[in-house]
Every structure is written in C-alpha cells, then in structure tokens.
C-alpha cells in the first residue's frame, strides 16, 4: 500500500514535469500536430525574438526578480541579526503567520489601493498638506520598482519563518558564545559564523522566492509595468492570443522564461559557491578588536542593537500588510470616496450584496477545490513520509522542491499541451491535478519535521502489544500527528486557493475561483468590487488556518493535559522553580 502511494506520488507529482518541459520544447520548434504543424523549424524563435520589447521585458524580469529576492534576503538577515534572541523576536514571530496567510493577490490589490496615485497613502499625505502630484508612482511604474518592493515585503516573512528552524538547528546562541570568546562582536559573529551556515540551509526557500519573483504573473498583472510587461506577463499575453497558430511563439517565450529562471538559479548557486566555498578567507581573517573602547554596559549595547536602524527594519513588513487589509475593507464598503479624503464620505454594503451570489458560489467552489486538492496531496505526502520511515529511502529534496522552483507558466503550458493528446474535456480533473502538484511540496515539507521527530519506538511498542501495522498507525501515530496534519491541510488549502495560473491554464478559463476573479477584477475600473473579491480571497485562508488551529488544539488536548499534569508535579521542585532548566534526578 505504502509502496503504491509512493509510486502514485511520483506519477502525479514528478512525471508531469517531463511532459511539462517537452510540451514547451516541441511547440517551440513548431511541432504541434493538434494544430496541423508537422514540420519542426525555428520560425517561432524568429517571431518571438523580433518582438520589440522582449529584451526590455527580460531586463525587467531580472531586475524585479533578482532585486526583490536580494532585498528580501538582506532584510531577513538584518532583521534576524538585530532581533534574534531578543524579547522583540517573540512579537515578530507571532506576526509572521498572519502575514503569510494573506494571499499574494489580496496583498497586491491592497498594496495597489494604498500606493496608487489616488491610494490611501497619497490621500493621507495630501491631508497633511504634502503635495503628491510630482511623487513617484509605485503602481505599474515602468521600472517595476513597486513590484520589486511588493514582492520583497511579501516574501520576507516567508524567509523569516524558514529561518527559525534553521537557526535553531545551527545553535546560534552557543556558536555566538564561542565566537565572542574568540573576540568576535555580535555583528562579526553573525557575518562570519551564522551567515555561512544559514545561507546554504536556506537555499531551497531562497530558490523558491527567486523563481517566484522571476516568473510571477498574478501580482505582476496588478502591480507590474505594462509597456512592456515582465517576461512572464508577456508570455501570458502571448499565450492568450486568439490566433492559435501563435501558440508556438508563446512556447518559445515559456522556454525563454524557463531558461532565464534556471540561469539565474545557477548563477545564484555559483555566487554562493564562490563566496562561501572558494573565497572564504574573509571568514577566517580574525576578529576586529578595537584597541580602545569605551566601556558600555552590556545592557546599553543590547538596547542600541535593538533600537538601531536594523532593529526597525521589520516595520515595513508588518505595517504594510496591517495597512492594506483595512484599506481593502474601507474600499469594499465605500460608496463615495473623493480624493483626497482620508476616509469615505458615504458607506454602503451595496457591493457586497450585489456580488453576494457570485461570491458564495465562488467561495464554495474555491474551498471545495482547495479541500479536494489538499486532501489528495495530504494522502500522497503521508504515503511518501511513511515510505521513507519504513524503507529509509525517500523522495530526493530537489524533486520535492522542483514544482516550487520551476516557473509555473512554463511547466503548465507544457502540461496543457500534453492534455491536448487526451480527448475529452476533463478541466476539473486537470485543475485538481495541477493544484495537487503545487500543493504537495508545501504539505510534504510542513509534515516532514513532525514525522522526523516521531519516536519510532512507540510503533515498536504498539506492535509488541499485538497491534497490526494499520491499527498502530491509526491508534498511536495518527492521534499524535493530528495537530500537524490539520495545519498541513490548512497550508495545502491556502496554497491551492492562491493558484492563479494552474486554474486559468488547465481549466481553460472554464473554472473560476476567487483568485482568478480577483485578478481579473483588479485591472477593472471599480475598486469597490475589486476590494470585495480581494478581501474575501484574503479571508478564506485565514478561516482555513483558524479552523485548523481549533482542530489542532482540540486534537492536541489530550497530550497538553498530560503535560500540564507533569508541569504541576515538576513545579514543586525548587531547582526548577529557580532556573526553569529541565533535569532528571
């Protein structure tokens, strides 16, 4: 059974990558029998490369994709360096989850409503007497700066979250104590001890952020430049050309996007290899010890570190999302909102009521789709994790992460071309398949930790008591894993809900979700309708996570009750009361 699940996972989640790639290579060579193209040639390449704005699109893609990733990595590192192990870190950690739960599209719509020339920020500035007529406009600016900042702000919390387990793993506190003993100050030890260990362990999340930044379509449609757009948006526009014969040009574009993305990933790896493996003299050049330092108290130095510029770097990453959600809410109820008023002069629920039927229908279908995809991906993920535990051999990490680092547009385009070879219109099936493909890595990775920390001896004890394998899993392991499983389902559902391209491409426009509608309406004229869709799209994952947390707490109730009994017993011990350090006498 486990072996079968493992094979099914490879079949569903890894094999599509082959037709996905072939499906863009062959049409790019003008070989597409479904459209009567039987003679391979390079004509599509000529047509694509003759497009006047292509080089500028590639430049914009590189600027926004690399720029946003570098900015996100740098800020993530500075935030960690300034706040890790400080009382402020706890607060930052609590803010990460809601930031992540906010979908990209909802964030982008809110961002646009805040930073547009008639957005809330400009209204605020005007209201305090600042003339904004000559201010730089971040929304759909020709250089992609607004897109770059939005991506960096949205991705930094993801990198922060990924860093938490990495920093615990590399034992930052102890390493810093050792480095301090060797004469290294706080900043030097983060640069020379933590960074060389943190960065390689963050490789996969960073590659995912980089690949996303280079190939993003939904956010770029809302915030990115338009003439010319980024390469991914350009390919998406080519793909939607009414003339089907031009699909070969779109295939070339998708291939180009894939090449650009992999070249940048390879370059990132080469830079990392050069700076951290080849030229690493800077890491062992010794501690900088100022000869004469004024004796500052430890406390005052720490305060300085936490209140300095780097101590405040996390502010935009929490303030912007905190601002954009209320702005969406205001817009969704605004009936009359003149510029430069800070608040609407008249409110109305008209737009909610007007859209209510569609909203209910879309929310239901989106939630259903997300639920089915997440449950299927969950079964596959558990199957793979059990297979790894049993046979000590699992899916290679690169294979799991591949759907996260391959540009969605390229792979989906190929997958769609592959579906042409299967007669019948199974759009719902194809969409679920694509959602499972992209939700699976997130589910797998979120369950990986709990599965690794599970004590296998519990299984052995249960089996020795006469339980069969299934009963052992169901009665012993499952209850212990339920909190993690609930959260993984919420993660999977949120990932599925956020999928724009898979739904559009494999659903061939016949399947609508809140995300596809929100993106379509974001470029429309009525901000109030966009706000309604954006807000609801942002609300659904929050509901998923809230329900998951409740379910998780309910299922973890037993173990917690047991722990509290233990704590009560242990708290009578004086040594524990004093230092809170666990020990066993």
């Amino acid at each position, binding site marked *: 059974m486990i072996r079968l699940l493992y094979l099914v996972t490879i079949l569903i989640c890894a094999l599509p990558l082959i037709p996905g790639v072939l499906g863009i290579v062959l049409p790019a060579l003008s070989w597409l029998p479904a459209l009567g193209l039987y003679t391979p040639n390079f004509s599509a390449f000529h047509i694509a490369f003759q497009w006047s704005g292509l080089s500028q699109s590639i430049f914009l893609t590189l600027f926004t994709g690399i720029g946003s990733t570098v900015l996100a990595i740098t800020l993530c590192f500075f935030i960690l360096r300034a706040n890790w192990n400080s009382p402020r870190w706890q607060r930052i950690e609590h803010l990460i989850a809601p930031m992540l739960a906010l979908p990209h599209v909802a964030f982008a719509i809110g961002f646009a409503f805040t930073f547009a020339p008639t957005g809330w920020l400009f209204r605020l500035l005007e209201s305090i007497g600042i003339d904004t007529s000559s201010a730089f406009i971040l929304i759909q600016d020709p250089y992609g700066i607004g897109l770059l900042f939005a991506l960096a702000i949205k991705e930094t919390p993801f990198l922060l979250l990924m860093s938490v387990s990495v920093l615990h793993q590399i034992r930052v506190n102890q390493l810093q104590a050792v480095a301090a003993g060797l*004469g290294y100050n706080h900043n030097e030890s983060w640069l020379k001890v933590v960074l060389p*260990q943190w960065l390689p362990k963050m490789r996969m999340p960073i590659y995912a952020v980089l690949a996303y930044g280079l190939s993003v379509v939904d956010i770029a449609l809302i915030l990115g430049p338009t003439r010319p757009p980024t390469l991914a948006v350009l390919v998406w526009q080519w793909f939607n050309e009414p003339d089907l014969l031009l699909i070969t040009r779109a295939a070339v574009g998708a291939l180009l996007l894939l090449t650009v993305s992999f070249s940048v990933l390879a370059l990132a790896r080469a830079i990392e290899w050069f700076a951290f493996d080849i030229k690493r003299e800077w890491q062992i050049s010794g501690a900088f010890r100022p000869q004469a330092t004024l004796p500052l*108290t430890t406390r005052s130095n720490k305060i300085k570190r936490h209140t300095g510029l780097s101590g405040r770097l996390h502010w935009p990453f929490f303030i912007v999302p905190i601002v954009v959600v209320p702005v969406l809410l205001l817009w969704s109820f605004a009936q009359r909102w003149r510029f430069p008023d800070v608040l609407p002069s008249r409110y109305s629920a008209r737009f909610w009521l007007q859209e209510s039927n569609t909203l209910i229908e879309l929310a239901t279908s989106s939630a259903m789709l997300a639920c089915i995809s997440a449950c299927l991906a969950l079964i596959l993920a558990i199957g793979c994790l059990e297979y790894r535990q049993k046979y000590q051999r699992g899916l290679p990490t690169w294979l799991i992460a591949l759907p996260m680092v391959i540009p969605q547009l390229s792979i989906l385009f190929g997958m769609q071309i592959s579906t042409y070879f299967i007669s019948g219109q199974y759009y719902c099936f194809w969409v679920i398949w694509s959602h499972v493909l992209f939700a699976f890595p997130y589910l797998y990775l979120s369950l990986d930790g709990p599965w690794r920390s599970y004590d296998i001896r519990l299984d052995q004890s249960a089996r020795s008591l006469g339980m069969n394998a299934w009963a052992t899993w169901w009665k012993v392991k499952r209850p212990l894993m339920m909190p993690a499983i609930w959260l993984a389902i919420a993660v999977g559902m949120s990932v599925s809900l956020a999928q724009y391209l898979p739904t559009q491409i494999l659903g061939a426009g016949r399947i609508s979700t809140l995300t596809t509608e929100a993106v379509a309406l974001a470029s429309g004229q009525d901000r109030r309708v966009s706000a309604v869709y954006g807000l609801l799209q942002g609300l659904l994952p929050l509901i998923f996570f809230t329900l998951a947390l409740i379910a998780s707490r309910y299922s973890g109730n037993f173990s917690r009750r047991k722990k509290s009994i233990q704590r009560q017993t242990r708290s009578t011990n004086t040594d524990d009361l004093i230092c809170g350090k666990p020990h066993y006498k």
Partner: protein
Amino acid sequence: MTLSVENLTINNANIPLISSINFSVNNGEVMTLMGPSGCGKSSLLSAIAGHLSPVFTLEGKIQLNNTIMNDLEPDQRQIGILFQDDLLFPHLNVWENLAFGLPRTIIGANRKNEAIRTLTQVGLHDIAFNMPNEISGGQRARVSLMRTLLAKPKAVLLDEPFSKLDKALRIEFRLFVFEQIKKQDIPALMVTHDDDDIPENGLVLRWPWNNNDRGLTNA
C-alpha cells in the same frame, strides 16, 4: 593574572540563584565548580563570559586582573569558553577552525601556517584539511580547545567539557586540557559533575558555595 569574583549575586525574578559568592583563581590554576543541576553553575559561567540571559540580574564584581568585566561586551572580555559540545564551525575545515581563533594581526598565509603548526604541536596535523564531521569526538574536542587557546584568552571557562566523551578518551583529554592551561598560564574555571575530573591539588568550590575568600573548600 587572576580571575576573581566578589560578592557576586545572580537573581532570577528576585529569587536568588547565587548569593554573595567569592573566589579567585590564579594563573595556571583550574578551579572546579560542583553542585546539583539547577544550582547556578552554568549561570555563573555565563555571567563571567557575559552571556547571562536578560531575565537574570547581576550584582557584585567580576574581575580579571584589575579590570572589572561586568560592563564589557562578551567579545571584549577575552575569556574563552569551552562547552560539552565541541562546537567546531561545520562550514570550516580543521585548520580554518583554528585560524578563526587567531588574532587579526596574523595575516595571509601566516594564518594557515600558524594553525597547522599548532596542530602539529598536538599531533593533529593529519586532520588539518578534514571537515569537523570527518574526525573523531576526541579529535574535535582537542581542536576546539586549541582554537579557544589560540585566541590568546586571559581566562578559560570549561562547561562540562568532558561529559560527552567515553571513559578512556575522557582521561586522555582531561590531562591534555590541564597541560595546555598550565602551558598558557591562565586561570580556568570548570563546571563538572564528576569528582574524577578535578585536577590534582586543584581548587574546588562545592554547592551550597560555603567558601572562604579563595573559594577553597575541600579537594
């Protein structure tokens, strides 16, 4: 050079973890701190090294020679620390780990030469180019100690340095540590649970810290 502690009190939320402790350790001496878990041994080392968690409050004086350490940042104290885990940096090989501890005044190829010379002195030159995960626990422990000493600390703190080693290795490494500390001629403070770890004629401070002015109780 003398490491001394005067009327040192460590409080955790107004509950005293250590109250008014006094001792001093001279050059080349190793003072052993012994006591049950939770009595504050490791917190005392953290206070001396400057890593005490902000939840604790500190009173009294920590002095190295005539310099008061209380107000200095950990990196300015020049006090080396050795934990039960060797904590070699896994991204650097053995000689690079040693070079990490060398002063900045040694530059270029001299850093590598100095690191390898130190390894040769202690018979570990064969592993100079190995990564930490490629060498044995005993070798890692030695490299870790040598790295600490190469930074020319004015004192060394040893937090249960032998507890993760097997018996044979423990005896060997213990002798190695005491020999190196004597050679460097610096004061050392060691936390341990094992009476066998106490150096011959060494100073011992046992919980509940009923000490005299040098902290000497019984050996």
